[in-house]
């Protein structure tokens, strides 16, 4: 008889999940793993219960340094966002969800950059503090689940006093190879109408439109019990008014601003992004590492790299999860960007927006999430609080920038969410 050497202990540990847990937790999780196996091997199912989620987030930009400004208010933007989501099953193969977002925004924004009259670094002229503006967004999403696939669609409207966007799309997933492989794809578009306040004055457009179409395709592979590799590529084509009606650019031939041009960017933009993610689970400490890399390139010649690591640490049988995150981002500038211009470009393009300038940034933060099962009237609760600090500087960029944009922004971001499943 052939003698087969078998690593029983390893296979058993995989099956048994260790002895740290209580007897009840071990039996219950093994039972759930068993009862969760679908014999009709349907893909993921629709949500089974009515779920409601509320999220509140607060985004606050640091004030701009007095020495970096020439004009306007130094307190920058703050955004408060409230979001309500309600999701529920429609049939035994489909579900539907509705999101509603209310945002209020206030503070000053960068207007244009000019050379410091004393001959130093460029300085930022800020707008006056705006009154609080409001944005409303409502979206409807639905999914249909096949045996090995999911098809979804969404439609939404977003409106501000100077902006209206209608967006829609379809997306899907297909599982194969005993669900070890997943192919995904999506197509979406949006139509935006811009009607800036005080339009028609001081060179500002009265109204204009832009459209965009996005396509994406992805591939996800379970490499082994604890490792998943995901990669996806997306393409976005935008056309129409892609400039910022509230920004200007300075012509300063002799280190003095002689003329202000309206922000004017190309009327098309083609963007490609490639995202790769590796997830690795470490069973002996009940934690997962997610490592992400994103590469972006567009025909405004703006290239960016994002590196992100997230550590998901579970405690108390997954009832508490702590997720520290570290992210590094670096971008090169758009080809027509200058902090200010010596003379007008022959193509008429002009922008001093810090978001098109060369810079790098570090973000770090943590999320703490708690689950409470069978709480208040046998509902399942999830509470999460997330804090993130973002620091940007031209010196953080991978390739050194010639001139720092004075408008680069540091911010705090706090996000609190509560989910209830009834």
């Amino acid at each position, binding site marked *: 008889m052939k003698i087969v050497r078998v690593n029983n202990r390893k296979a058993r540990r995989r099956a048994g999940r260790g002895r740290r847990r209580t007897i009840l937790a*071990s039996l219950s999780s093994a*039972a759930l793993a*068993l009862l969760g196996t679908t014999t009709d091997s349907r893909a993921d199912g629709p949500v089974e219960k009515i779920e409601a989620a509320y999220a509140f987030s607060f985004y606050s930009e640091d004030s701009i340094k007095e020495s970096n400004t020439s004009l306007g208010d130094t307190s920058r933007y703050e955004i408060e966002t409230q979001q309500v989501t309600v999701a529920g099953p429609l049939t035994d193969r489909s579900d539907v969800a509705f999101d509603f977002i209310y945002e209020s925004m206030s503070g000053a924004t960068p207007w244009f950059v000019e050379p410091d009259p004393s001959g130093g670094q460029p300085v930022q002229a800020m707008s006056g503090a705006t009154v609080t503006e409001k944005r409303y967004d409502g979206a409807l999403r639905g999914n249909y689940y096949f045996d090995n696939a999911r098809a979804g669609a969404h439609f939404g409207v977003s409106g501000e006093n100077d902006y209206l966007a209608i967006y829609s799309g379809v997306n899907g997933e297909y599982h194969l190879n005993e669900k070890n492989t997943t192919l995904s794809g999506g197509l979406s578009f949006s139509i935006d109408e811009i009607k800036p306040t005080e339009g028609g004055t001081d060179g500002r457009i009265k109204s204009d439109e832009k459209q965009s179409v996005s396509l994406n395709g992805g591939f996800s592979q379970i490499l082994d019990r604890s490792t998943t590799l995901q990669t996806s590529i997306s393409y976005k084509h935008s056309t129409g008014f892609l400039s910022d009606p509230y920004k200007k650019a300075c012509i300063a031939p002799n280190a003095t601003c002689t003329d202000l041009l309206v922000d004017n960017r190309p009327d098309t933009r083609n963007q490609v992004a490639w995202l790769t993610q590796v997830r690795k689970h470490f069973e002996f400490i009940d934690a997962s590492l997610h490592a992400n890399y994103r590469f972006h390139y567009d025909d405004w010649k703006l290239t960016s790299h994002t590196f992100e690591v997230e550590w998901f640490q579970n405690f108390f049988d997954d009832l508490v999860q702590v997720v520290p995150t570290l992210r590094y981002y670096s971008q090169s500038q758009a080809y027509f960007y200058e902090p200010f211009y010596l003379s007008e470009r022959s193509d008429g393009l002009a922008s001093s927006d810090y978001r098109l300038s060369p810079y790098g940034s570090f973000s770090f933060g943590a999320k703490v999430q708690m689950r409470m099962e069978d709480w208040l009237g046998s509902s399942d609760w999830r509470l999460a609080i997330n804090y993130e600090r973002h620091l940007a500087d031209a010196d953080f960029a991978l390739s050194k920038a010639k001139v720092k944009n004075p408008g680069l922004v540091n911010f705090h971001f706090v996000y609190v969410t509560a989910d209830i499943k009834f």
Partner: protein
Amino acid sequence: MPKLHTRLTALGSPCEFQLYGASKDQLDEVAAACASELGRIETKYSRYLDDSIVTRINQSAGTGTFTRLDDETKNLFAYAQTAFDQSDGLFDITSGVLRRAWDFKSGRLPNTDELRDLCKLVGWKRVEMRGEEIHLPRPGMEIDFGGFGKEYAADRLAGVCHQHGITSGLIDLGGDVCIVGPHPDGSPWLVGIRDPRDPERAMASLPLSRGSLATSGDYERFMEIDGKRYCHLLDPRTGWPITGMAAVSVVADQCLVAGTATTIAMLKGHSGAHWLEKLGLPYLWVDGNRRTGGSLWPKRTPRNEAPATQAS
């Protein structure tokens, strides 16, 4: 509201379904889906059917041929592994071979040599797992899912009912009860627990609106010789029937967990009550001397035989 009440025999046990539905058509559909799921489980896992996966694994014992497992069967083995670990090796799905020595109809004790030899074929630890494949290393070794198959089926049937939109009903597979949902008016089901020394009588009845109740007892198959009871629950280490507990009932979210807990507590014998207390699920026990205990009995009863009135 239309109600379906069916009794049938499946998985070797008397079974009972009581389901409420929106229409008779819906109930017929659910009944058919339940029957087909029961049939599927029986065909796939019966150790009496030649083409079941259990038979295939058992027939390959000692041949060196590994049997490949599908997802469901792999998870059943993973569950068996967990139950084995959490019971310190008492819950062992290879212990079924010990039945060959015990004939409870004969009224005779087994040959001790035969029992000793059969004990050598018991041992989940010896079973060889290689990725998604399994092999029993000794000829004559056997596995079976009798230890939790009924409970697994009860949970799956409750799942089938939920998938068909049934929110009110009860599934009873040979005394292992899974609640699909309370009566349409919201009132709980009253689930009786057999008296182990008078199995036709209920010694307690529990109001249950959700979850499952499983019971394990020494009264299901047994013989008495010289006033001593020998029951069908055998200690995998010695091959002899367990002593100590007469019956144990446990309430849990899943019937699987409830059933496994009752079996382990029975196998633990005199320390079963302590093990149940540590486990933390609502429970009730009766020992061989008719002493009772557990969180499902009221703390103080005016009369000792008063039934439990509350359950989680």
